[in-house]
């Protein structure tokens, strides 16, 4: 029953759980049910580096306008973890709700007068209805999902349909899930006034959309690009890239006649070996990649220098997490930028791509292979935990069947035969790329690949001129790559005339920064927007930066790495570059950007910022 205060399809709620208890599937069920109702939705999993027993949270933001950045203003918190009651209760917005397990009494001191407490005896209900101890724990999750469905007016039939799809073949499990869902749903219906003022209502915004995480999309990109060799070492948050790639290969890469595999996936002994395998395969002519996170990139530095100097294609996916060192493996950051841009000793520079969401993970993964082969060099796809491991609503991925892989300058046997002699590092094209030959093709194309000093003939050298000749060409090659990098996304501000400032960002900060610009516009502050999508930076990015008095570079690291890279690699004067930094490890929210911006321009307006969702982040701790 809608009333004057009702808020349809514009709210956020958070589920506080204990990890390892099966809550993830219940939370995923809620997210997917809202998606199926055609409503724009985003989910963020804030989980610990642990297998069982530590606090874990899942946040869902429902927003009819398609705002997908993290919201920090929770209308409802489902508090299923007694360990974190205190901090969870603090986070409910004034006038909001807290759903908790009333099988045990709640400490009176925790109560808040401005929050409505809704108690459902989930544990008790499950003990009464289920026999097995494990089942009682698992079904508690489905039961709270049932209550949330009633409270938020999510269509029960949609949730039931999802259960049917998941457990259709396991009858007993399906029945238990249905029963648990109904338990929570009915209890809420009977005891509370359902739905609450904020609620879901069917829309039609998701017809052409899918719900996918970035790691799966990246793996799909590698599959479609025709990658045949993959090597990896398990590491959070990159593991699911290779697990997805394996699943996809099993499904799409078995020869229909022979049943044999048109792929080789090697779990290496460490990241050093993983990138070594990729380089060996690239040298032999295969499209090959590895996926890793910051600690792996650190280990791969030596080999990256070899691939750069010996000019061997290699694709790396860096799903960034919080550093330095082990850091916080299950938290997100963009702090590997400088490491990746210049990885390895000596003068080295690499090509980087910055996807903002899973759809770009797919697109850029394909592009990585084309760039790596065209420029005969490593390409690093810089994803992060937020993009890689969270489910995002993005347009359906599509494929153009006219795509032909860009294999770069690889000489065919006929071309080799026509040469009087083959010299590996001679005969460069307009992009400073020299043709290569593959092993096994022709004795005339044979040469020795080396990471030691070499001249344009491919021979060993210690002579200054010969050495510089080659490394200067490599620098030219890196500069030339700028024209092949996806151009920045630029959006003019809503104000009239030339905007004096811009917000510039990269990767997964996209949604929060664009929303922040909108919120600022509503307050009469208009700025332009640019999202950089790769390195080396192109002319377009440089022109944009030079056209604004001040560019605020929004990024998720302490040391303003993107700003530094811009200062180092473009003509933009440092005075035109300022930083807005957020590096605590959680996905960015628009409120944080607004608050950061207002303090940067000397107009801190905390009250207003709070209204925009800029509450200080109290979710620290929870280490693994």
């Amino acid at each position, binding site marked *: 029953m809608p009333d004057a205060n009702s808020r349809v399809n514009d709210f956020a709620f958070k589920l506080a759980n204990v990890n390892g208890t099966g809550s993830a599937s219940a939370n995923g069920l809620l997210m997917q049910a809202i998606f199926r109702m055609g409503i724009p939705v985003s989910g963020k999993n804030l989980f610990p580096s642990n297998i069982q027993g530590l606090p874990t949270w899942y946040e869902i933001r429902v927003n009819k306008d398609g705002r997908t950045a993290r919201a920090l203003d929770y209308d409802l918190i489902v508090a299923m973890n007694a360990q974190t009651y205190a901090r969870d209760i603090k986070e409910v917005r004034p006038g909001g709700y807290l759903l908790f397990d009333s099988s045990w009494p709640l400490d009176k001191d925790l109560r808040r007068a401005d929050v409505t407490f809704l108690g459902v005896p989930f544990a008790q209900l499950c003990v009464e209805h289920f026999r097995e101890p494990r089942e009682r724990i698992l079904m508690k999750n489905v039961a709270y999902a049932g209550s949330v469905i009633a409270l938020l007016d999510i269509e029960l039939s949609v949730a039931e349909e999802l259960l049917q799809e998941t457990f259709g073949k396991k009858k007993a499990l399906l029945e238990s899930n249905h029963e648990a869902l109904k338990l929570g749903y009915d209890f809420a219906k009977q005891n509370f006034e359902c739905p609450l003022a904020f609620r879901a209502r069917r829309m039609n915004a998701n017809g052409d959309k899918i719900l996918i995480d970035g790691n799966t999309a990246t793996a799909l990109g590698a599959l479609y690009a025709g990658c*045949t*060799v993959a090597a990896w070492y398990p590491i959070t948050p990159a593991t699911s890239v290779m697990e997805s790639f394996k699943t996809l290969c099993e499904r799409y890469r078995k020869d229909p006649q022979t049943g044999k595999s048109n792929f080789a996936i090697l779990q290496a002994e460490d990241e050093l*070996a993983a990138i070594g395998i990729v380089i060996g395969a690239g*040298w032999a002519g295969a499209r090959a990649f590895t996926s890793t996170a910051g600690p792996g990139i650190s280990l791969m530095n030596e080999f990256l220098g070899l691939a750069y100097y010996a000019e061997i294609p290699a694709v790396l996916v860096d799903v960034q997490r919080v550093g330095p060192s082990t850091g916080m493996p299950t938290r997100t950051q963009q702090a590997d930028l400088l490491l990746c841009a210049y990885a390895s000793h000596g003068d080295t520079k690499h090509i980087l791509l910055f996807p903002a969401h899973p759809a770009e993970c797919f697109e850029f993964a394909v592009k990585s292979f084309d760039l790596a082969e065209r420029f005969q060099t490593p390409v690093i796809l810089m994803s992060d935990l937020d993009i890689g491991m969270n489910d995002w609503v993005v347009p359906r991925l599509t494929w*153009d069947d006219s795509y032909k892989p860009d294999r770069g300058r690889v000489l065919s046997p006929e071309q080799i035969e026509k040469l009087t002699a083959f010299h590996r590092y001679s005969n460069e094209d307009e992009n400073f790329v020299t043709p290569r030959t593959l092993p096994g093709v*022709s004795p005339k194309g044979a040469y020795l690949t080396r990471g030691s000093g070499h001249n344009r003939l491919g021979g060993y050298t210690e002579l200054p001129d010969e050495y510089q000749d080659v490394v200067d060409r490599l620098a030219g090659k890196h500069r030339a790559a700028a024209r092949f990098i996806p151009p920045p996304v630029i959006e003019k501000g809503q104000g009239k005339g030339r905007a004096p400032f811009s917000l510039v960002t990269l990767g997964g900060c996209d949604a929060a920064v664009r929303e922040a610009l909108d919120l600022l516009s509503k307050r009469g502050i208009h700025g332009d927007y640019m999202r950089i999508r790769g390195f080396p930076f192109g002319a377009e990015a440089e022109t944009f930066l030079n056209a604004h008095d001040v560019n605020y570079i929004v990024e998720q690291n302490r040391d303003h790495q993107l700003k530094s890279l811009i200062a180092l690699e473009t003509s933009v004067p440092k005075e035109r570059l300022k930083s807005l930094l957020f590096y605590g490890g959680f996905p960015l929210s628009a409120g944080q950007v607004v608050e950061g911006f207002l303090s940067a321009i000397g107009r801190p307006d905390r009250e207003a910022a709070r209204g925009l969702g800029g509450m200080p982040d109290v979710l620290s701790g929870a280490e693994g």
Partner: protein
Amino acid sequence: MPSISKPIAAPPGSQTNDLGLTVRHYEGAMSTLCAGCGHDSITAALIRALWELSIQPHRIAKMSGIGCSSKTPTYFASGAHGFNSVHGRMPAVATGAAAANRELLYIGISGDGDSLSIGLGQMSHAIRRNVRMLYVIENNGVYGLTKGQFSASADVGSKLKKGEENQMTPIDPVFLGLSIGATFVARSFSGDKQQLVPILKAALKHRGLALVDVISPCVTFNDHEGSTKSYLYTRRHEKQVAQADFVPPAREISAPIGAEGVTTIAMHDGSLVRFSAVPEGYDPGDRARVFDYLQGQQAQGLIPTGLLYLDESVPDMHERSNTSDTPLVQVPFESLCPGSGALERLMEDFR
């Protein structure tokens, strides 16, 4: 590493192999190693083995890491691609290349520093994967390019030139290989070409990774009195366990199988390795017995050499993962990319 190229000029009347190539066709650039270096003898044995087996030079891929030994791919098979990679990481690069193109003949040349110190992990895992390749360790117990520090294969009590004595126990690639499942384990001596050539031939035809440890004295830094990796010390202490001969498919065997001290093991391609003068109780196909025997010999201060262990029944990396028989580099893109229709259908899984 500078190199001086050497033209292929076979004197008229030189012997040719089945491909019509002379030994010269398997040579490379002039060696820049020290005169008398054991590594050059190993290169010569390898050239001989490749020639005798009539292998097309451009179907070879020469892989190495860093060190004196790792320079040697320049000195043989100039018609083959080579990859002089980074220190201790040759096994990973070779694994990747082999994953991409299973049809090439991979020859990894490494040393005791490259394989037993910095690259111990990579070597061990290449052995576990059973990558089809010849893996030669040119073992001299010392770091040459950095002027004579002990390596991990130095024996306890072995002395450096200035008298410093090694006190740490050595890593023995033969025992290491046997303990982690190597399917072909040999030890030889660079000064014993007669023994080495047939071992290399068998190794080049092995189904998986063939580990060949070759004691290869460093004339500059480790050939003095007090060294246990010198020519003299090795000659005095070497004991050939059995004579191994490589018999190509469809060649007659002179001595009858079953004769005393004779045993044969069939290779996967139909060739045979014929062991003669096998000591009583020794069986090159029985890992535990080989281990026992070698331990007994080494306890007596001997250096047992020969093709010590061979098992042709273990599938290699590709066989284990059921990889396509067509090398992955040759699988057409159309067979790799599922296309727009498949993606459209797959998208329903993400609804």
